[in-house]
């Protein structure tokens, strides 16, 4: 049992190293990557099944008892997130087999992808704040490498903007963690929770706020999201989908752990502030998207807007709110990555990411239009897709608590999201292509792209039509969150 949790971290790390050693042989590297991700996926499935069947798995590194050794904890939430991470890794690799917005061959590309998967997995499974900081830094290093492996001017610029804001975020986290350590003498989640229960809850508040602020930077919350739209669109589409699916959600997950699991007794003003930050995140994200015509930029701003809903669930400070956040994270990762994959296919067919230069796909590629409709409508929150249940959980809890303004903002943002999705629909699918002589490519290898997007759309449909399992999982995950030993 404890081997599973370690294997989930070791497999992507080992694959990253081995893939780096195979840098001169691209075919072998690609094959090894599939083996690595396949193993990772299988282990993640086994981990989730074990955790759901039995109980939370805890491993303490170095053989020391819990407050001294570094703990790795796989509770339902962490195990579920690891499985989604593995799924995203698999989807990205399969998508790269096709030639929709292909990433230029580079020996460092695949090792960095695996390193990122390892870092994301590590940050989900760790039970120790300093260890979380180290994984966040590893995630930063891997994503910087992926942003900068093409050295055009716009790529370097994006790298620098991404670096400065994210580095400030992790440094803030480090300082906050150090203060928490100085105040309590602990770094493990369980020991910190125990220390926080003794004595005045406001004593630790400044340090908790510091760390929470750092995680807010990582999740792209208002007003600290500038790094995201400045950098994401310079990535090739398969990597973009991986970034969009996973990175910001690590920030949300960490925030959920911090405020929902470790320090549930944090003074109310922190949650109140977070609620309004969440509302602003939703609004500014969706308004930022309205200006743009590039599909990637539109979708990047929508990441921010959706992060707002997840933060709102945390800020409501109730079991139902946290349940909504968990459901929202699961739904959002699948939907968002899928939208970016579809965007790559649109680009491949029409030759441009700019909606004013594309069009005509509804007549020529109706299957792609159908695949796009599923995640797009799910993002808006149209029943019976997964986004509807996610929004329902969060908005219902907002109404239960009588927070009418927040609920109204959440619903208005839903309408504005519809505006953006309609813009993509009209621009890329409905209207005719501006070039009358245009015909979609027929010589491209898009089979893997279709497989991935259709499979992810199927996941969205399944969650939407049969939400009981996912709701049960979200409830279980949110409930276990509070039980940090």
């Amino acid at each position: 049992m404890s081997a599973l949790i370690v294997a989930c971290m070791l497999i992507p790390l080992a694959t990253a190293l081995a893939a780096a050693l195979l840098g001169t042989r691209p075919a072998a590297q690609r094959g090894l990557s599939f083996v690595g991700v396949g193993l990772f996926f299988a282990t993640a499935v086994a981990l989730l099944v074990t955790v759901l069947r039995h109980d939370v798995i805890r491993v303490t590194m170095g053989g020391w008892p819990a407050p001294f050794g570094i703990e790795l904890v796989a509770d339902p939430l962490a195990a579920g997130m690891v499985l989604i991470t593995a799924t995203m890794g698999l989807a990205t690799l399969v998508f790269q087999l096709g030639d929709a917005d292909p990433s230029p061959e580079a020996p460092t590309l695949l090792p960095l992808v695996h390193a990122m998967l390892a870092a994301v997995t590590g940050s989900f499974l760790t039970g120790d704040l300093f260890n979380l900081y180290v994984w966040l830094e590893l995630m930063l290093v891997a994503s910087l490498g992926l942003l900068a492996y093409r050295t055009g001017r716009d790529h370097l610029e994006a790298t620098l903007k991404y670096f400065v804001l994210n580095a400030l975020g992790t440094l803030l986290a480090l300082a906050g963690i150090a203060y928490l350590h100085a105040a309590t003498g602990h770094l493990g989640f369980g020991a910190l929770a125990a220390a926080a229960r003794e004595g005045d809850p406001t004593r630790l508040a400044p340090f908790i706020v510091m760390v929470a602020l750092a995680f807010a930077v990582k999740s792209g919350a208002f007003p600290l999201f500038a790094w995201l739209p400045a950098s994401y669109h310079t990535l090739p589409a398969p990597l973009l989908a991986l970034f969009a699916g996973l990175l910001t959600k690590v920030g949300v997950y960490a925030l959920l752990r911090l405020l929902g699991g470790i320090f549930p007794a944090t003074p109310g003003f922190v949650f109140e502030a977070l609620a309004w930050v969440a509302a602003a995140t939703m609004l500014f994200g969706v308004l930022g998207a309205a200006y743009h015509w590039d599909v990637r930029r539109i979708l990047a701003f929508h990441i921010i807007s959706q992060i707002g809903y997840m933060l709102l669930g945390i800020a409501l400070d109730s079991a139902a709110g946290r349940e909504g956040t968990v459901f929202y994270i699961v739904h959002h990762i699948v939907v968002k990555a899928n939208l970016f994959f579809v965007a790559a296919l649109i680009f491949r067919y029409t030759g441009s990411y700019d909606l004013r230069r594309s069009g005509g796909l509804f007549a020529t590629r109706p299957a792609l239009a159908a695949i796009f409709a599923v995640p797009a409508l799910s993002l808006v929150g149209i029943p019976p897709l997964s986004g509807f249940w996610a929004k329902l959980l969060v908005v219902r809890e907002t109404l239960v608590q009588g927070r009418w303004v927040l609920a109204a903002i959440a619903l208005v943002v839903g309408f504005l999201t519809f505006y953006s999705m309609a813009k993509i629909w009209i621009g890329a699918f409905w209207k005719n292509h501006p070039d009358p002589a245009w015909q979609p490519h027929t010589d491209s290898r898009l089979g893997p792209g279709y497989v991935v997007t259709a499979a992810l759309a199927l996941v969205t449909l399944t969650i939407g039509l049969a939400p009981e399992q996912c709701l049960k999982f979200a409830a279980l995950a949110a409930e276990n969150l509070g039980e940090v030993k």
Partner: protein
Amino acid sequence: MIWLLAIGIGTVTAAGVFLSLSRELLRCVVGVSLLAAAANLIVFSSGHPEAGPKPPVVPVGLEQLVDAAAPLPQALVLTAIVIGFSLTCFSLVVVLAIAQQSKSNDNRALRDAEPRPGPDGKPALESLATEDQI
């Protein structure tokens, strides 16, 4: 000792914030690395180094460390220093490459990652800027 550390951390943080707000890229990056140094000093001071220079050894017959700074933060800070140093090196290389390509060290010149507004106020149509990606 602790006051000296506190004043030192405050000064380094102030310098780091000041520099990282600069428009000049090199200053900005140096500012971030100064902030990293400040964060490292905070980690270091979380071990209560005011306890004095006694080695962190538990005396015979006792279960706990007495009158000595905790050694754990010193181990933690080593990790943070290594990561911070590598990121500083990386960012310096990026700044150097940007300066060489754009012949400018001013972040107001960094406009390539954003679309420029066109004559109608909407984002300008990029003139085949996607060519390198096909």
